[in-house]
């Protein structure tokens, strides 16, 4: 059974220095949650943050604590999927890809067995102002809920979940932005029939649920089955308050908001600080009319720090295995794929290959660009470069790239309208940077400190801890290669 509190306990136990608690009252609607997160980020920290006394939209201390930045480090994503933190890099990507292909049927439970039904609010009682909804960036016009609405395809009956931004517009009204993807298709089908679209917003749940919604399964596949597979257990469902068994909601969620999207109604929404770290413009978007709210008695409100690592890592992780598996079929020497946070986990892709034949790197890059339209720049490196380490990738670019020979530009390709560098709403320019060594000619080898030497002098035994007193008598450590040279006596004469 998925329970957010179990995950928090695991994260506290496994990564205690990466969880912070904020006991003083803060006002999320006045940027005070993101102000804390931004200050932590500015000093290189991305901890999971639990705010114990956030204000709600009435200006009172909310009954709901607020948790955010859960996904800002891959180690916590690994814990969410039941994996050790040591496998948070590419093994996590591969495991996500493996699970995503499977399906686990959900389990229907009664309302009495469903924690999300511990508190049920209908009609005017279902008031959004009770929540500590977060206003993230200075040009956001209102607080936004940025978690996952679930919709149901009226033809196949399949459920679909996706992260979408929802602007607070009133006690029982939200604005809703959608891209032309699965939920957009479901809404359009309802609109064509003149019907409202039922929607259940899962505001808070165990992180495995949200990671599961990021799957890239085809339209028509049931997301509840995929989410169960990604989480590694059958997802428990319960009938909704508004539509009964015609629309099931996650039984173990912390908070679910039920509502309807009236057909063919649009209102202004945005601007909103988006994933590239820039604002998406104000535009005409759908609205949601809230019908019911259900939640656990001890529910915790959840938020994603969009446009930052919390948002980026979730977006990149599920794509890495998918790209890797596609490349593997054509370039078997591929060793790893990573969408780095420096490229907002969308626009840049690093690929490493154990190149056997010149040309393999470009072939791999073409597959990347064909597989994910958002990716704009592909960096292909040799297997001796860690694609998860931007410094190593840039070192390879610095030392293994000649601009006139190793960079290819592809014009008029499909991009992403939120990329502020685009000069066309849809079309973009792609770039392939081949930072691999040539196979056909001799190439300077990378410098290397012998591993056996590192094993001989482990730093824990040799380097004095910061602040530790210097020993009065320094005894020369015996090494396998004999006494150390005297200080100030270099091995080789200085250059004139």
């Amino acid at each position: 059974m998925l329970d957010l509190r179990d995950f928090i306990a695991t994260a506290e136990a496994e990564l205690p220095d990466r969880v912070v608690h904020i006991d003083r009252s803060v006002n999320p609607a006045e940027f005070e949650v993101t102000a804390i997160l931004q200050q932590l980020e500015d000093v290189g920290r991305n901890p999971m943050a639990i705010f114990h006394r956030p204000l709600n939209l009435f200006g009172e201390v909310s009954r709901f604590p607020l948790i955010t930045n859960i996904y800002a480090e891959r180690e916590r994503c690994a814990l969410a999927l039941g994996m050790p933190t040591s496998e948070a890099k590419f093994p996590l990507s591969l495991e996500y890809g493996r699970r995503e292909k499977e399906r686990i049927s959900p389990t229907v439970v009664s309302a009495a067995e469903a924690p999300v039904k511990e508190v049920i609010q209908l009609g005017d009682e279902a008031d959004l102002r009770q929540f500590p909804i977060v206003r993230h960036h200075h040009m956001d016009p209102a607080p936004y809920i940025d978690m996952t609405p679930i919709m149901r395809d009226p033809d196949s009956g399949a459920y679909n979940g996706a992260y979408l931004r929802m602007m607070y517009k009133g006690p029982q009204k939200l604005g809703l932005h959608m891209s032309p993807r699965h939920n957009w298709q479901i809404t359009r089908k309802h609109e064509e029939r003149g019907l409202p679209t039922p929607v259940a917003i899962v505001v808070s749940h165990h992180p495995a649920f949200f990671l599961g919604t990021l799957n890239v399964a085809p339209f028509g596949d049931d997301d509840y089955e995929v989410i169960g597979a990604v989480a590694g257990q059958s997802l428990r469902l319960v009938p909704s308050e508004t539509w009964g068994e015609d629309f099931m909601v996650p039984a173990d969620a912390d908070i679910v908001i039920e509502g309807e999207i009236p057909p063919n109604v649009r209102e202004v929404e945005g601007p909103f600080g988006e994933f590239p770290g820039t604002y998406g413009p104000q535009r005409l978007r759908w609205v949601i009319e809230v019908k019911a709210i259900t939640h656990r008695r001890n529910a915790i409100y959840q938020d994603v720090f969009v446009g930052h690592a919390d948002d980026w890592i979730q977006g990149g992780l599920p794509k890495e295995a998918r790209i890797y598996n596609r490349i593997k079929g054509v370039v078997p020497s591929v060793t790893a794929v990573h969408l780095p946070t420096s490229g907002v986990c969308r626009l840049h892709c690093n690929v490493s290959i154990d190149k056997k034949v010149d040309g393999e790197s470009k072939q791999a890059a073409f597959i990347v660009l064909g597989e994910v339209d958002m990716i704009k720049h592909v960096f292909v490196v040799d297997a001796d470069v860690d694609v998860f380490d931007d410094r190593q990738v840039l070192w390879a670019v610095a030392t293994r790239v000649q601009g006139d020979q190793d960079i290819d530009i592809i014009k008029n390709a499909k991009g992403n309208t939120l990329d502020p560098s685009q000069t066309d709403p849809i079309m973009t320019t792609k770039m392939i940077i081949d930072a691999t060594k040539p196979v056909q000619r001799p190439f300077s080898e990378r410098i290397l400190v012998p591993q056996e030497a590192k094993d001989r002098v482990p730093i824990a035994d040799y380097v004095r801890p910061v602040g530790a007193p210097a020993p009065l008598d320094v005894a020369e450590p015996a090494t396998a290669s004999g006494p150390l040279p005297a200080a100030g006596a270099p091995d080789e004469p200085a250059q004139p």
Partner: protein
Amino acid sequence: MAQIFYVHCPTCGGKFPCHPELWQVDYELLCPFCGDSFPQEASPLIITATGERRPGRDAGRPRPPSGAAGPARTPARAPAGDEDPSSSAESM
């Protein structure tokens, strides 16, 4: 985002980006800074994607009382523009 345009709020002077679909429809814009709603024509300055700068189409026109503006004038049908492959958190 080649075709966004920037609108200056007639009340607080704040500048914010709008999608081109709002250029073409009769809708009230919402200032994210002061929360005022206003018709595009009331903006003292609009900056288009091509860098063109011009005052609002009839910036001197009297404005309705702030409370009378309402959130938006909803058209009977959804305007063109829904199909634009924009993005959001869904671009995850």
